[in-house]
């Protein structure tokens, strides 16, 4: 049987992309002066694993480049290479290049050979021209010496590992040889193979791994470093990791004060790994150590990769079930008698289970926002260098979870906001010092849950928005009348107007006025809202409110004539019955509602969508006060119906985009209800009123 390795390519690309993110994060920590040997080991292991994987799959360009990179990294690990910002720059560019090469390989495009050669030559030059024989203070010997500075609970004399590969491990493109090699890069290892499960040649499936290993890693290595070696085979093996040595014994001391010495004298640790055989006789666990540390892989729980399409199919099926359950409930409602009551009880239970199932599936689609936040350390570092600014990035709440689709769409708007903040918000170190601020500017990204939404904030401690300059520019462009007075919020909102920029100098970072309008549009398209707060001299904060998911929404059903519409509950401020004296009109035409101290336009849905209503008199129906983008309107409907969670079906996919509508859903009685897009409704209303006004003036 010939093994088709192409089936593992996608997994390799996905895992390599994640590994490169880890490598970049470790490099950025190194660049920040954190001379931790574990960081170098992490970087080395990523290069090593990608090299091994690409060699296995025959991706020779990637394997060739990672080979020389690995050599350079090995010098760093061995203390022969000073870690300075120039070296970190080269390694970051190597990281970028590996990403590009993997992307090209995945897309079956030729890699950029010129770029590869240039960086290859640069690395060779570094290795050839600057061979640093003597240990250097930044990383080498001191870095090894830095190991004892680890937190006391993380210091171990060594680790005992029992590694039993699953039968499919080899077929899945993994190779224990590579893992054991990698393990030996951490510290000297004593490796004992167990071959007792290897059957006779006649019974052996040679693509199944029947060997297992007991390994002692002899040195002060972090548990995380050991675990990360086995990251790639998690779920495909039985893995048990236990600490041994004084620290491990100290850890169990309270419960086992008289812990005996290890029952078995272990072989002396040679500088080079010592191989011995423990065929039928397993090595007994050492002394009283077994409970000293938790095991590794099992404690973490397994995980599998599932394509988003499969999850969406599942979600879609759950959505259909919700509709069916709703149909059943409606059918059962008019029934009478004891059995009908029992049926309704059972349907009530079904509804609760359905909601639980729906929530479980939704949770599968959730990812931490760190997936997006992780790109910013690099961005901030690079931009800081280019702009000559000293910057500190703070990330908080990066474990906050969001739907994958929302996450994918929020990345670019956040990049725009951060670039703007760095370019225009945070001042140069000289200006900051002159203003009595620290030379380092701070940019903070934070995320948290609030009321069924996720809030993402981008804030800086720069100079703040220049209110007068924005207003002057807006007047110059005719966006605001010469005598028109605007609230602070509305002035700041002007920066979201297309092509609006107050930048004196257009740089390649920002300042062309392209971007902020796109940011707002993208966020609105996600069903989110954006607000700006700014204080002169102290900084600005952009707050984005996002829905948790794009697949389901909590809706209020409202009837207009024979039609039922779903109004997103998040947009509803309140619903009122209109009193005659509260209704007025502007210029004898458009009706407005006086609500407390405000005047709100009245939007008649039947008029907007051209349908036959039950009521045309405002006093007969209801006004739903809805809000979007800081604007509020009264939405006139015939009556309110129930509230329910609805599964959104895309109009764009199934029909075509319609302004003012966010999608459609199926109701319990089998009818299709359209879901209102409140920002779109307001825009459609304003546009139509604008045209009517122009027509009236022309007449």
């Amino acid at each position: 049987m010939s093994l088709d390795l192409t089936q593992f390519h996608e997994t390799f690309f996905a895992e390599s992309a994640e590994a490169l993110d880890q490598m970049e994060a470790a490099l950025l920590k190194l660049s920040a002066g954190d001379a931790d040997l574990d960081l170098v080991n992490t970087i080395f292991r990523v290069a090593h694993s990608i090299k091994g994987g690409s060699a296995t799959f025959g991706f020779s360009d990637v394997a060739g480049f990672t080979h020389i990179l690995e050599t350079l990294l090995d010098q760093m690990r061995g203390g022969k290479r000073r870690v300075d910002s120039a070296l970190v720059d080269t390694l970051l560019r190597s990281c970028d290049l590996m990403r590009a090469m993997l992307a090209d390989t995945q897309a079956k495009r030729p890699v950029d050979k010129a770029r590869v050669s240039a960086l290859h030559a640069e690395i060779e030059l570094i290795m050839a021209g600057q061979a640093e024989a003597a240990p250097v203070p930044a990383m080498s010997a001191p870095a090894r010496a830095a190991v004892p500075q680890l937190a006391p609970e993380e210091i171990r004399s060594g680790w005992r590992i029992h590694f039993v590969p699953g039968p499919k491990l080899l077929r899945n493109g993994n190779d224990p040889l590579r893992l054991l090699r990698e393990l030996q890069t951490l510290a000297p290892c004593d490796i004992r193979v167990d071959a007792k499960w290897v059957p006779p040649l006649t019974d052996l499936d040679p693509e199944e791994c029947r060997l297992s290993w007991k390994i002692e890693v002899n040195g002060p290595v972090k548990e995380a470093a050991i675990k990360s070696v086995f990251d790639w085979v998690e779920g495909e093996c039985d893995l048990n990791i236990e600490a041994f040595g004084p620290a491990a014994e100290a850890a169990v001391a309270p419960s086992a004060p008289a812990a005996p010495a290890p029952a078995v004298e272990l072989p002396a640790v040679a500088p080079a790994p010592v191989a011995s055989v423990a065929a039928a006789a397993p090595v007994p666990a050492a002394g009283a150590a077994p409970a000293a540390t938790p095991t590794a892989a099992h404690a973490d729980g397994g995980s599998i990769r599932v394509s988003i399409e499969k999850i969406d199919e599942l979600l879609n099926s759950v959505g259909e079930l919700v509709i069916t359950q709703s149909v059943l409930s409606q059918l059962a409602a008019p029934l009478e008698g004891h059995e009908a009551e029992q049926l309704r009880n059972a349907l009530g239970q079904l509804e609760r289970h359905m909601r639980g199932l729906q929530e479980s599936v939704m949770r599968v689609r959730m990812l931490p926002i760190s997936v997006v936040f992780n790109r910013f350390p690099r961005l901030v570092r690079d931009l800081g260098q280019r702009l000559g600014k000293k910057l500190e990035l703070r990330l908080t709440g990066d474990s906050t979870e969001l739907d994958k689709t929302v996450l994918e769409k929020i990345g670019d708007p956040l990049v725009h906001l951060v670039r703007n903040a760095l370019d225009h918000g945070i001042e140069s170190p000289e200006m900051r010092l002159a203003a009595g601020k620290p030379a380092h500017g701070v940019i903070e990204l934070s995320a948290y849950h609030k009321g069924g939404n996720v809030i993402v904030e981008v804030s800086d401690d720069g100079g703040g928005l220049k209110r007068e300059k924005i207003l002057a520019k807006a007047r110059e462009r005719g966006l605001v009348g010469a005598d028109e007075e605007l609230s602070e919020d509305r002035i700041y909102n002007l920066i979201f107007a297309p092509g609006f920029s107050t930048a004196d100098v257009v740089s390649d970072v920002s300042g062309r006025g392209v971007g902020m309008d796109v940011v707002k549009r993208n966020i609105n398209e996600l069903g989110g809202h954006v607000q700006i707060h700014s204080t002169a001299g102290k900084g600005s904060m952009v707050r984005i409110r996002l829905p948790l998911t794009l697949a389901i929404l909590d809706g209020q059903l409202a009837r207009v004539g024979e039609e039922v519409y779903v109004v997103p509950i998040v947009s509803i401020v309140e619903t009122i019955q209109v009193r005659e004296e509260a209704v007025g009109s502007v210029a004898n035409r458009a009706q407005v509602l006086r609500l407390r101290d405000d005047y709100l336009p009245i939007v008649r849905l039947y008029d907007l969508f051209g349908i036959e209503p039950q009521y045309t008199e405002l006093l007969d129906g209801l006004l739903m006060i809805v809000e979007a983008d800081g604007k509020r309107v009264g939405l006139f409907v015939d009556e309110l119906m129930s509230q329910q969670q609805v599964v959104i079906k895309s109009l764009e996919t199934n029909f075509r985009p319609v302004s003012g509508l966010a999608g459609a859903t199926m109701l319990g009685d089998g009818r299709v209800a359209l879901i209102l897009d409140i920002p779109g409704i307001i825009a459609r209303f304003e546009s139509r009123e604008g045209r009517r006004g122009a027509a009236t003036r022309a007449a």
Partner: protein
Amino acid sequence: MNSELIATAPATGGTPVNGHVSLGTSCTIHEVQALRAHMMAQAAHTGPFEIDGGNVQQVDTAGVQLVVAFALDCLERGVPYSWKGRSQVLDEAVRVLGVGALLESPG
């Protein structure tokens, strides 16, 4: 398949061999099925055997495990085998996987 398997070969040195297994240049999961088939064909002989790993340039755990299985079969049958050669690559894999002692001929 890169491995070149030779059914029989003349005796080397003073010990007459009845079977000769060449591991070829590549002894990886890609070749193990074919290599196993040829090893089984060899195992039909009475031995002693000669294993030639001198040309191995690529090796992985699957390849080494197969050689271990062959060696254990010989051990069980009490049939000696000898190494005609072991490349540096193969030696390193044997060392890292800790199977050195398993690949010492009983004879």
